[in-house]
């Protein structure tokens, strides 16, 4: 126990300042009113859905929960069920074998809800595109509020995408 406590003390707090929202990542105008955003912004529950990624974007989602980025300190946490979620974070092109599961997950998420599509594949279908096996971009299957490009996007870019989704369009423009 002594070694464990010593290691914690030695490490200290390594969390860095979060990025600011970027309106350029928005696909559609903010649909949530200020009142809702005020609550979302302080206690947002995210459900991650991997709809067919190579697992690269998922690795960066893990990183975002690590100590440098420490998403949870902003009141944003990942939950185990879409029924508990305010936001879906979707990685990958949507594999046709995942199309139904993604739609059902979206339907199971209570309104009002937000969707952030992650990575080049989530934004455009990426290298996998559309084919007999892939529906391509996430917005081909469910409505998307914010799309974050990158292969994979850095954890900072992911955080920025999430923060953009819960900021108002007005504030973004300002």
């Amino acid at each position, binding site marked *: 126990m002594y*070694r*464990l406590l010593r*290691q*914690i003390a030695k*490490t200290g707090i*390594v969390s860095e300042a979060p990025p600011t929202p970027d309106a350029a990542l928005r696909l559609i105008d903010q649909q949530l009113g200020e009142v809702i955003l005020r609550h979302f912004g302080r206690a947002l529950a995210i459900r*991650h*859905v*991997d*709809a*067919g*990624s*190579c*697992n*690269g*974007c*998922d*690795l*960066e*989602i*893990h*990183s975002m*929960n*690590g*100590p*440098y980025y420490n998403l949870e300190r902003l009141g944003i946490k*990942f939950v*185990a*069920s*879409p029924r508990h979620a305010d936001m879906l974070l979707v990685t*990958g*092109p949507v*594999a*046709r*074998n*995942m*199309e*139904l*599961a993604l739609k059902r*997950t979206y339907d199971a998420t209570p309104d009002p809800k937000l969707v952030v599509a992650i990575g080049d594949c989530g934004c455009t279908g*990426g*290298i*996998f595109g*559309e*084919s*007999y*096996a*892939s529906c391509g971009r996430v917005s081909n299957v469910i409505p998307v509020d914010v799309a974050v490009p990158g*292969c*994979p996007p*850095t954890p900072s870019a992911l955080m920025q995408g999430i923060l953009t989704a819960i900021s108002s369009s007005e504030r973004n423009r300002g």
Partner: protein
Amino acid sequence: MTEPALSTQPVAGAMPAFRASVSAAQLRDVCEKTRAQGARLVALWGSDETTRGAGYALQLALALPSGLLWLTLPLAREHPRYPGVADIYPCANRMQRAAYDMFGIHAQDSSDRRKWVRHRAWPGGVFPLRKDFAIGASFPPSEDRYTFVKVEGEGVHEIPVGPVHAGTIEPGHFRFSIVGEKILRLEQRLCYKHKGIEKLFETMTLADGARLAARVSGDSTVAYSWAYAMAVEGASATEPPVRALGLRAIMLELERIANHLGDLGYLGNDVALAFGFFQFWRLKEDLLRLQGELFGHRYLMDQVVPGGVARDLTREQAGRLIARLEQIRAEVMELRAIYDDHAGAQDRFILTGQVLPELAEKMGLVGFAGRASGIKHDLRLDYPMAPYQQLGVRMVTHTRGDVAARVSVRFDEMFESMRLVQALAEQLAPGPIRVPVAPCAPGKCGVGWVEGWRGEVLIALDVADGDRIHRAHAHDPSWQNWPVLERAVLGNIVPDFPLINKSFNLSYSGQDL
């Protein structure tokens, strides 16, 4: 070991490989003999040769002490079928079912004829990897019926999990049959992530295929990129520069270190030791950031390319890499001592999810998980090639095959990889890092076979006209290890499943293709 009496042709390339044609009558005999001599099935896949005036073909890759034996069994255009080999090599079961779904080639006398890759995206009787199937074809969603084996008895019930899991995990379905908390049976259903990778390869040139190979499984991007480059270089008789080989090995070992750091963190997390998660992910992030700075990509994607590597490492940069690894090593040693002394963690690790050597051998468990169950194979040692042959890689093994053994092997393999990176970075050969890839004749084949962090990754390549791809089969070691996970959990309690699963951390994307 003596090779079966086949006339073999060497396949040019960095790893020893041989090709031979077999008849349907010979196939099972060859498989039985090689199996009796301790060979393992690396991969089984199909191919469509109708554009070359033939029918279909079954392809198998076996690992023998002398190298990779790549067998081809030509099949008729009408009712293509072959004698199944899953009773000889159990890991062939899912591969045979996938070969049927993709090519319509049929394993005779197979007791398990359920579909594997096909869910709802295309109907039965249609085979996406046949040459006359258009990649853009689309079908109305078909009915998706799949029968799980039912366990019956008093108090037995099922827990269906997935495809959307409770954490940040790739999608797949697990069907648990349990009594109380105890797992009586686990059955997996995968291929939710099937996104047409092998079909896509066939629309690409050899040069373009490198980007796709790098995205077969994101956590193994270096291993796949190297395997793909090795296959292209073999087929085109291109010799990558010595300096590039050193840089490739540095990146492959960094990939091993980064993945073990991440998983060791999660293994702490899964036994309620969140301290472990934060400590290991801090160290992993330190490494990823330096990789991003030095190589231009945090996960080293697209850095290994056919003909060499994409960017060089200066002496000063190599020095920084060595210094950073030295820091990480010191901290990991401290963390290992903390894990080892932590009664709560050890109580959860020890004798959980055990795979004894006998089962591992029978099922063909590979990679570090295999080595944790006494399977002494590692391509870096079995077939030493540059630059590994000069380094004397030390193999790490264990015999208990439980979560604790896999944790222990991961720690030791990580330390060994740190030693290898330091040795490689100190003695990088001077010279160019990339050479042009020579044009490739149609019908040429290449083999890429690389010991990735999870296990052996195979790319089997067959070239078409104009430096295009006739067939590229990508094989992930997860094909072998997923069925073993079904066995590893038996008799354990459901809450230990995430821990056991993470101790293997198998790829969905690499399996689903």
